[in-house]
C-alpha cells in the first residue's frame, strides 16, 4: 500500500497473491450491506484493532468481576454468608457484617422509589398525553437537567437545605400523623435515612421519567383512538391503552432507577450520617453499601478491613449488572416492538 494517500480517489491496486490468499482465511461474517472484497493489509489491520478495542470493553467488565472478587477474597473466605446476616461491623476486632449497610441501601432505595415512581409516571404521562409538543419538549429538557447536576452538588444542597427542612418541617408532620409506626418515632435529625431517600428520589426521577416517556411515546396511536372511540375518557384511555401497552417498559424504567439509587454514593454519603446501625426510625442516621465504601476506604487499615469494603463493592457490582441487564432487556423489548409498527 502506498504510504501517502492525499486523494481519496485512487484505483484499487492489482490483487497481489498475498491478498487473494487472505480471502480464503476464515473471517467473521460481515452483514450483507457491508460486504466487500476483503483483503488489503490496511483493512485487516484496522478491523483487527477496532475489534480489539471492542474486546477490551468486554474484558473490562470481566476484569471488574475478577479484580473485585480477588480483592475481597479474604473477607469472602472468612465470613462467607454470615457477611450478609451479621450486624457487627467492627474494624477494631476485624469482624465484618454488612447487614446494616444492606438495610440502609434497601430502605433509602425504597423511599426513593416510593416518591420517584409516581412522580415520574405523572411527569411522563403529562408530557406525552396532556401537554402540547413544544411545551413537553421544554419540560423534558428541564427534567434532564436534574440528571446533569453533579451528585456532590446534590449532597451539598442536601446537607444545608433539604436535610434541615425535612427535620424542621416534614419530620414533625410525619411524627404527628404516622407516629404510631416505629418508622416515624424518635428524635429528628437532619442527616437521616429519610433525607438520603428523598434526595435519591430527586436524583433518579430523570432516569425513570426519560424511559417512561420513551415507552409511552411508542404506544401506537391506534390503541388510543380505539379506547377513545369506545367512549373512554382521557384517564380511562391511559389506564386501558397506554399503561398496559407500556407496562413492561415501565417496570424496566423502575428497575433502572433502582439500579441508580443503589449505586449512588457521594450524595448519600453526605446526608445519611454514616453510622452502621439498624434503626427502625427513618429520622436517624444509617449507612449504605456505597456510602460505607466512600467513607471508610481511605481509612481502612489492614487487609481484612479493605477486603470487607471491596466485598461491599462486589455486592454493588453484582446488583448493578443484574438490574441493568434486566432493565435494558425489558425496555428495548417494548420500544423496538413499538417502533416496528
Amino acid at each position, binding site marked *: 500500500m502506498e504510504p501517502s494517500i492525499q486523494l481519496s480517489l485512487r484505483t484499487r491496486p492489482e490483487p497481489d497473491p498475498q491478498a487473494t490468499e487472505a480471502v480464503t482465511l476464515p473471517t467473521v461474517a*460481515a452483514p450483507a450491506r457491508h460486504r466487500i472484497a476483503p483483503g488489503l493489509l490496511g483493512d485487516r489491520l484496522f478491523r483487527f484493532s477496532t475489534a480489539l478495542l471492542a474486546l477490551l470493553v468486554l474484558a473490562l467488565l470481566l476484569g*471488574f468481576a475478577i479484580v473485585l472478587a480477588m480483592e475481597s477474597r479474604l473477607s469472602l473466605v472468612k465470613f462467607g454468608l454470615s457477611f450478609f446476616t451479621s450486624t457487627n461491623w467492627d474494624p477494631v476486632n476485624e469482624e465484618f457484617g454488612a447487614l446494616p449497610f444492606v438495610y440502609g441501601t434497601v430502605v433509602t432505595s425504597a423511599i426513593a422509589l416510593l416518591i420517584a415512581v409516581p412522580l415520574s409516571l*405523572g411527569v411522563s404521562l403529562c408530557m406525552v398525553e396532556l401537554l402540547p409538543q413544544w411545551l413537553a419538549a421544554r419540560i423534558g429538557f428541564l427534567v434532564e437537567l436534574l440528571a446533569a447536576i*453533579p451528585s456532590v452538588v446534590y449532597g451539598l444542597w442536601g446537607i444545608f437545605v433539604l436535610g434541615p427542612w425535612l427535620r424542621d418541617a416534614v419530620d414533625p408532620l410525619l411524627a404527628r400523623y404516622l407516629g404510631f409506626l416505629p418508622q416515624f418515632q424518635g428524635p429528628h435529625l437532619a442527616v437521616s435515612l429519610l433525607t438520603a431517600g428523598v434526595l435519591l428520589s430527586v436524583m433518579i426521577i430523570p*432516569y425513570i421519567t426519560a424511559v417512561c416517556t420513551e415507552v409511552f411515546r411508542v404506544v401506537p396511536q391506534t390503541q388510543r383512538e380505539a379506547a377513545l372511540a369506545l367512549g373512554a375518557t382521557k384517564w380511562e384511555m391511559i389506564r386501558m391503552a397506554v399503561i398496559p401497552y407500556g407496562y413492561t417498559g415501565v417496570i424496566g424504567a423502575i428497575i433502572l432507577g433502582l439500579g*441508580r439509587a*443503589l449505586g449512588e454514593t457521594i450524595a448519600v454519603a453526605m446526608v445519611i450520617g454514616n453510622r452502621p446501625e439498624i434503626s427502625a426510625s427513618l429520622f436517624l442516621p444509617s449507612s449504605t453499601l456505597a456510602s460505607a465504601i466512600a467513607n471508610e476506604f481511605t481509612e481502612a487499615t489492614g487487609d481484612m478491613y479493605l477486603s470487607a469494603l471491596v466485598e461491599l463493592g462486589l455486592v454493588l457490582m453484582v446488583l448493578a449488572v443484574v438490574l441493568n441487564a434486566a432493565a435494558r432487556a425489558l425496555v428495548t423489548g417494548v420500544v423496538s416492538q413499538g417502533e416496528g409498527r
Partner: protein
Amino acid sequence: MRAAGGGPSSYLYRKLKSRLMMGLTLAATVITLLPLFFVLAYLLSKGVTSLNLAFFTHLPKPVGEPGGGMANAIVGTFELIGLASLIGVPIGIGAGLYLNEYGGALSAPARFAADVLIGMPSIVVGIFAYAVLVRPMRGFSALAGGFALGIIMIPLVMRTTEEMVRLVPQELREAALALGVTRWRTTVSVVVRTAAAGIATGVILAIARVAGETAPLLFTAFGNRFWARGLREPIASLTVQVYTYAISPFADWQRQAWAGALVLTAIVLALELGVRWITRGRLKPLR
C-alpha cells in the same frame, strides 16, 4: 364501563375523575421541577456571594485560616478530564466504529458490556482503579484518577459513536468503495468525517458526565492541598474539594464549598447546554 345515569359510572363522574388525574400529572410535573429550581437558586445565592478572585487564583489555606481558593482543584479537574479523554476517547471511538462498521460476532456482547458499564456505580470503578493502579504504584496519583474517569467515559463514547456513524448514509460508503477506496480509508475519511460533529458532541457529553464525578476519585486521585508536581502525585479536583469542604465543620470551608459547587455546576451545565444548543437537542446524553 356502563353508561348508566348517576353513581360512580356516570359520565360526569368519569369526566371529573379524568380531569382530576390529569391535573395530578400536572402537579407531579411541578413538584418534580421544584428541586431543580431550589438547587440552582441556592447555588446562585450562596455561591455567588462566596466567589471572589482569590477563589480562582489561590491555593487552599490551612484549617482555621480564612481565605484561600481552589485554583489547584480547578486546574486538577481539567487535568483529570484530559487524562480521562486520552483513555476514553480513542478506545470508545474505536470500539464504537467496530460495532457499526464491522459488527462481527463480538458486537452483541460488547454492546451488552457497554450498557452494563454505563450503569455501573462509579464507586466500583474507583475500587477497580485502586486495585489496578494505586496499589501497584504505591500511592494515589493523577494517573489513577484519570484512569478511573477514562473507564467511565469508554462506554459512553462508544455508544454515541455507534449511534452517530449509524446515521451516515450507506450511499456514502458505497460511493467511496465504488471509487476503489479501501475499507478502512472509507471508514476514517468518509464515515468518521461525516459523523465527526456527532462524535465530538458525544465526547463532550461524556466529559461533562465525568467532570461531576466524585466517588471514583476519592481513593485514586485522592486530593491535594497544593499543586501536583507530576502525574504520579495525588491531585485535587473540584468535586473532591467540594465534598471535603461541605462535610467539614468550618463555616469558611462550607462557604467555599458553595462557591466550588457553583463553578463545578457552571462547567458541567455549560458543556451540556452548549452541546444541546449546537445540536438543537438531537443528541441526548446517555445515562
